[in-house]
């Protein structure tokens, strides 16, 4: 008995030691892997790039071994964790559009792409998009993968029923302001009672803010979320609610609503087309795209960045330059609905073709000009955090029937608190 127990303990100790040794070895290989300039670790998320283009990049740059990882879950958190040490950090990484601003205060943790040759390429890419990844002292930390030019998707058949214009060009010119768009919504709702104009008023607010040249915080790090431009966007957003043309969808029922005609229009970015066609394949051919009322806006669009610990900056830059060349961006549009950041790609057949889901409409005629006219606005690191207060209060208006005026005051006071916590003056 005694002996066997001792032996059992010995075995347990050996196992523990072996496990420890394995773990140590695991750490060891990681260490040597990242310092080797022949091995480049490449992180992105599913759908963040065209997988085919990435696979071709591995073949194209056969002199280095590109170790791609498609990271699932919360990408930003995993990147923050990964960048804690040089050994675990990727050499090339994607950063989502909504997160890029929060990385700018730590631009020193990334390489300046301008010094690697991006300054010469810059004119080929949309300048307002490059500005989102540029620090105030002119360092560029991200190579733009895609953008989200916004448009108004509408159901042609329902518009026809309500006696509204159906031709995209005509819809774009007649519903050219928010007010004209809401008026059309009232008519649509009258003609087809179960159909509403917008899914929720937060969507309208986010578009309206994006149409301006300033947001919640200015370049001097001062809170401006209580000023007229945000107030106007708020008033615009509340209108469909008071007019009764807001579907007030704030849960997972959007998928069903988009398919059964509850939603007559949908305002969203170019990539939103994929959401609609996935959620409502049965409505194929019934949708069209028109310009966003009151001017273009942008929602989302990611970047490729090189952490400062990158083992081989020149090679890494060459790789992302190749992956995001206009030709490959056009492939990205076909494979993953990534709208190109290089206007040269808008002329390529992948984008100029008609889209069967939109009844053969050439959607680039709407998105292309919108993409080039999107206003450049300073987006502060705390922008996304501060904006949450407005969206929460707009949802309160929809869900609880909260008075819009009270909701505005609460939103501003909460936004101020968040801004203060985030170090905004």
């Amino acid at each position, binding site marked *: 008995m005694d002996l066997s127990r001792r032996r059992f303990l010995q075995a347990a*100790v050996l196992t*523990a030691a072996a496990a420890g040794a394995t773990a140590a070895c695991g750490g060891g290989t990681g260490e040597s892997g990242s310092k080797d300039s022949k091995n480049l670790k490449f992180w992105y998320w599913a759908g963040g790039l065209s997988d085919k283009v990435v696979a071709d990049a591995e073949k194209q740059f056969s002199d280095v071994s590109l170790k791609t990882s498609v990271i699932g879950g919360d990408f930003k958190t995993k990147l923050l964790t990964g960048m804690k040490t040089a050994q675990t950090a990727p050499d090339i990484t994607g950063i989502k559009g909504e997160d890029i601003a929060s990385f700018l205060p730590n631009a020193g943790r990334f390489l300046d792409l301008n010094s690697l040759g991006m300054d010469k390429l810059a004119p080929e890419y949309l300048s307002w998009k490059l500005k989102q990844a540029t620090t105030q002292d002119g360092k560029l930390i991200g190579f733009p993968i895609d953008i989200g030019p916004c448009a108004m998707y509408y159901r042609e058949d329902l518009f026809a029923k309500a006696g509204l214009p159906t031709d995209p060009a005509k819809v774009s010119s007649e519903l050219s302001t928010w007010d004209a768009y809401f008026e059309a919504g009232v008519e649509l709702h009258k003609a087809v009672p179960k159909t509403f104009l917008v899914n929720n008023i937060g969507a309208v607010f986010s578009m309206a803010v994006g149409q301006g040249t300033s947001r919640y915080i200015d370049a001097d790090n001062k809170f401006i979320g209580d000023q007229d431009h945000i107030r106007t966007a708020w008033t615009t957003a509340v209108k469909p609610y008071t007019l009764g043309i807001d579907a007030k969808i704030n*849960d997972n029922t959007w998928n*069903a609503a988009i398919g059964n005609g509850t939603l007559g229009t949908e305002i969203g970015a170019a990539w939103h087309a994929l959401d609609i066609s996935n959620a409502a394949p049965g409505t194929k051919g019934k949708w069209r795209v028109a310009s966003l009322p009151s001017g273009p806006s942008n929602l989302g669009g990611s970047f490729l960045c090189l952490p400062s610990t990158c083992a081989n900056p020149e090679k890494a830059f060459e790789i992302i330059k190749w992956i995001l060349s206009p030709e490959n961006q056009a492939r990205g549009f076909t494979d993953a609905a990534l709208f190109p950041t290089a206007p040269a790609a808008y002329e390529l057949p992948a984008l100029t073709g008609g889209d069967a889901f939109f009844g053969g409409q050439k959607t680039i005629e709407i998105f292309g000009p919108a993409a080039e006219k999107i206003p450049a606005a300073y987006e502060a690191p705390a922008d*996304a955090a501060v904006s949450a207060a407005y*969206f929460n209060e707009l949802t309160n208006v929809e869900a609880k029937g909260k008075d819009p005026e009270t909701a505005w005051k609460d939103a501003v006071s909460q936004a101020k*608190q968040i801004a203060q916590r985030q170090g905004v003056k």
Partner: protein
Amino acid sequence: MSSSPVAGPAATGPSSGPATGPSGQPAPDRHRGPGRPGRRIRPVSAGGRRGPRRGIARYFPQYLAVSPYYLIFSVFMLFPMLYTVYLAFQKWDGIGEMQFVGLQQFRFLWDDPVFWLSLRNTVVIWVLSTVPMLFMALVLAVLVNSVRRFTAFYRVALFIPSITSLVAIAIFFGAIFSNNFGLINAILQSMHLSAVPWLSNEWTIKLVIAALMTWQWTGYNAIIYLAGLQAIPSELYEAAKMDGAGPVRIFFSITIPMLRPIILFTVVVSTVTGLQSFTEPQVLFGSDASTNPNSGGPGQAGLTTLLYFYHQAFDNNDFGYAAAIVWAFFLLILLIVTINWRLVQRKERRP
């Protein structure tokens, strides 16, 4: 009777001793029972009396054998916990420089209406889930205890919800309670009742989350109660029946008092876990949205304190503030557990 060891460690006070007393001649038995192992241990430790260091050396293999747990505990639990104390006094975005800000994060916390809202939400959801959960668990346990056939089947059936993936359950509940196209609203409408906007009303949101937690943990608690029930000597029931007590009287005068230590245990455990609801609202209300993620649903009615903590830490990257939130929350849980403990224990002394 064979399951009495289960009740043994859970029995917190000497109450279980006197309670078993009336059956037979307890006095000599008790000395032989719990007294013996104690005496047997003493001579062993007396061998190591010469010095504590020798004791450690002598039991080195044993210490080594239990060490993996403590190592993992200190690396993944203790260190992060202590680190959050440090973090609560810093301003930190996750990769940049830390900046010492003193008690500023706690001042922010005091003034933040959303934090207080999240506390209210958490406590309401906890009460809505724990009270019916423990009550139903007790009833289920008594029922299963009185059944003679298929007992294994019932036990497994009770336990299955607690080992089912929480995310899967949340998605399922989300589909059932969906406002416009959910199963429950479809049934209501087929009975010509008006549909309830389950996932947009302030109170029904909490109800749905509480229902989810109740569904998942009732069976687990029932199994614990069942173990406790089987430890109650059958003589007590026989004696009560001889004295003419009905099933209700037996339940309240024998079952409940005898189960008190077990009830205390489940109350404490469900307080600690019930207050930490996080995944339920996170999955139910579009946590992956790019604008305004983890807001806790319409009116922030499903924003529990842990979800708010997660939002501050991982959406806003305000790690210092997030640390302050969890520490304030820890103190609250401690307070509630203490109150619970006092309440249930005082009742125990009364009879």
